[in-house]
């Protein structure tokens, strides 16, 4: 993508005097440009996905048959499942959706030249990159962290994980968390203060609403994680006893702190996805979003309620029955705004003139599979049924439907939708559609049978399982192979686009694409919106 920016510099002589920027490694290491930093985040997510997906393929390979075939050390299995979780959450989904698309398109869509704090933007990225290095190291130093991404003590304390690996994982999350907090401050400041004249809050594109709400979730949730991690760090290294029953502490206290962060975290990953889907559905239906205000406030209410439902991850820890009753009710409430979003997307498409190009296929797939993953969420929100499903493959199936499928589908949606804007070239539409169908079939074969395994009671986080579970595990692993083909094809398409893609016009999507990023050239020049656009009428596809 570096090349394409250089082209932008030459192609748009009128911007020439503003386009002087460092070249080579200085351009990327010192970058304060929101587009370059967005690109860096996307590249980081792609690199991390090689590792994270690689680990999941190792797990599916081992699980294909009962017995231990490839991974003879169960601790190593625990290490890769931990690293898979941490990397996919903190270094693939978050950097792609928030750091990548957020940095690229917040300034472009609200009509301002750059983020409010460009230098802070730089340090946000490099803290995240350092975090990725630390989490990678945590798998190889000190025996590796085999704690699961939830890092529950006592398993994660010094007695049961004496090496440095858990400390590395903790520091990794500290760095990535600090980077995200700074990024969130940047996003909020930019969106509040730097919208183009006339773009009121109620005229912002829904992607901007999504990023705005996500930034608040980050800002409020991550400090709690940082506090909990610090306590765990001092428990491990300085003999404090926050989570240590023998010293008056309580391991359940960790779980409360972790999930107080952890549940908003799942909305941090899915609300940006909502934003992307809203833009794409509107663009390809050639219709404004249906129920714009309802959509915006549905996301806001999901964000607010998301902070008061954390203990539904802890229904089996043994707290009193009234507490569980509260968390059942609060959790089920979230289904209401989520339903509003689903039906509003359907209503946006209703009466539309839909072109099923690759981004729209992915958005369509997102909506359906998010419904499938969402309804199993309602099942799990009921504590009595959770007694059958907690820590089984049913839970794995549920959250992979909403994260591995839905959030990843949103990343693919955004990549295909905005690739012409980011690199100035068109992807191969035919290959893109093949890639969608291969991935769609693959992930469903991969994850749907895991519902059955969960129903039959197969626990998660085990490398070897009773022989009766063999059948569905083999099906699931076959699906993993198909999904891998889809993922590799995506990387080929990316490479093919950068190498051979046809030149993209400023707006390749036609009359449906009404947001401001389609008013600037493709690829977006190094500096954009130096003369602020003025929003006079109802904006950007939202009435």
């Amino acid at each position, binding site marked *: 993508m570096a090349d394409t920016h250089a082209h932008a510099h030459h192609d748009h002589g009128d911007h020439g005097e503003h386009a002087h920027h460092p070249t080579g490694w200085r351009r990327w290491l010192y970058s304060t440009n929101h587009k370059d930093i967005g690109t860096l985040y996307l590249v980081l997510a792609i690199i991390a996905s090689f590792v994270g997906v690689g680990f999941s393929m190792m797990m599916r390979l081992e699980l294909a048959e*009962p017995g231990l075939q490839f991974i003879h050390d*169960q*601790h190593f299995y625990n290490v890769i499942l931990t690293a898979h979780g941490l990397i996919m959450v903190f270094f693939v989904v978050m950097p792609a959706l928030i750091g990548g698309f957020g940095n690229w398109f917040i300034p472009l869509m609200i009509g301002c030249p750059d983020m409010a704090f460009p230098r802070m933007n730089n340090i946000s990225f490099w803290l995240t990159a350092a975090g990725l290095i630390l989490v990678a190291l945590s798998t190889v130093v000190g025996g590796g962290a085999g704690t*699961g991404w939830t890092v*529950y003590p*006592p*398993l994660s304390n010094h007695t*049961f994980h004496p090496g440095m690996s858990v400390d590395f994982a903790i520091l990794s999350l500290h760095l990535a968390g600090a980077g995200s907090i700074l990024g969130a401050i940047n996003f909020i400041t930019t969106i509040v203060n730097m919208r183009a004249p006339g773009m009121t809050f109620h005229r912002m594109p829904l992607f901007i609403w999504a990023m705005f709400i996500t930034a608040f979730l980050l800002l409020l949730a991550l400090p709690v994680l940082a506090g909990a991690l610090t306590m765990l760090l001092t428990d491990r290294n300085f003999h404090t006893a926050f989570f240590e*029953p023998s010293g008056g502490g*309580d*391991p359940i206290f960790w779980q409360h702190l972790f999930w107080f962060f952890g549940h908003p975290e799942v909305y941090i990953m899915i609300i940006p996805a909502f934003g992307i889907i809203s833009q794409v559905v509107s663009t390809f239906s050639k*219709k*404004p*979003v*249906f*129920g714009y205000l309802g959509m915006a406030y549905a996301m806001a209410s999901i964000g607010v309620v998301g902070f008061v439902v954390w203990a539904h991850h802890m229904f*089996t*820890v*043994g707290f009193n*029955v009234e507490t*569980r009753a509260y968390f059942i009710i609060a959790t*089920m409430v979230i289904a*209401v705004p989520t*339903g509003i979003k689903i039906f*509003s997307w359907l209503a946006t*498409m209703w*009466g*539309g*003139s*839909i*072109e*099923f190009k690759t981004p729209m296929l992915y958005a369509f797939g997102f*909506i*359906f599979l998010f*419904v*499938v993953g969402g309804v*199993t969420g*309602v*099942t799990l929100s*009921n*504590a*009595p*049924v959770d*007694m*059958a499903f*907690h*820590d089984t493959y049913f839970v794995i199936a549920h959250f992979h439907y909403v994260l591995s499928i839905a959030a990843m589908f949103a990343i693919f949606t955004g990549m295909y939708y905005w690739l012409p804007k980011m690199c100035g070239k068109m992807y191969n539409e035919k290959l893109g559609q093949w890639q969608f169908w291969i991935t769609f079939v693959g992930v469903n074969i991969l994850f749907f049978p895991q*519902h*059955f395994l969960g*129903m*039959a*009671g197969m*626990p998660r*986080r*085990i490398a*070897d399982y*009773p*022989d*009766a579970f063999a059948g569905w595990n083999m099906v699931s692993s076959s699906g993993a192979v198909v999904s891998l083909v889809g993922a590799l094809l995506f990387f080929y398409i990316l490479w093919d686009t950068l190498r051979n893609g046809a030149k993209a016009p400023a707006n390749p999507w036609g009359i449906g694409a009404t947001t401001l990023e389609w008013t600037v050239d493709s690829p977006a020049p190094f500096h954009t919106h130096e003369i602020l656009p003025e929003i006079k009428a109802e904006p950007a596809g939202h*009435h």
Partner: protein
Amino acid sequence: MIKSRWMLFLFVLFSAGAIAAGAHAEVIGAPQPWEWYFRTAATPVQEDLIWFHDLIFWVEVVIVLFVMALMIYIVVKFNAKANPTPSTRTHNTFLEVIWTVLPVLILVVIAVPSLRLLFFMDKAKNPEMTLKITSHQWYWSYQYVDNGGFGFDSNLIPEADLKPGQLRLLDVDNRVVLPADTEIRLLMTSEDVIHNWAVQSFGVRLDTVPGRINETWMKVPAAKIGTYYGQCSELCGVNHAYMPIAVDIVSKQDFQRWVEQAKTKFASADDAAPMKVVQAETQSSIDAR
């Protein structure tokens, strides 16, 4: 669903017949190949749980099919060829109210039985005996506090030592033996890290947490006498996959006979003293009952 439960039932009957040749109790609560539904319920809690799950399940199936139908309609009617001119409608207050209120009503329908079941499954009302369960890396120990206070450890049978008919990764050297028709209080704690004592057929799945004692209950009717299996369900370290749970539900009389044998077999522990852990020699006493 009903059809599959019947097939499961027939399968269990059939396999039980095959196993009856040995001295083992009828295996009821074990996973079956290609299973895609719950194991047989053995307690009122699990029966209610399955009923309640099916209620939610069918509601969800209807929702998913409804959304799917709408999406198919959209693909057919509103693709660019079929409908070249998009409408511009962006509001319909009536629709928006409907799709907000209707989900609320559906959730209320789900919440009422959910809370009723939650309170029902929480604690025993009139427990007739108590089993204390302690988890360790990586085995369970059980203490019969109301039956003389004896206790024992329950370890996985390694693959190399399995006898024919025993299940890999599920069978243990000393099974828990519990009486049918008895309301049993289960108390659980852990000696080291957090584990989870889960037997699906009983509707029991509870964390064992160091420094805490968690409580739940179970009651298996005499009609469901047999063997049930479960596995540790909270990541607890290297051998997380190797600490299964196997429970024999026997008649009250058989249970009393077993208790007398077990008292001598497992050196009895003083009530006040911490549980004395004795390694088991064989499984013969259970098989011999």
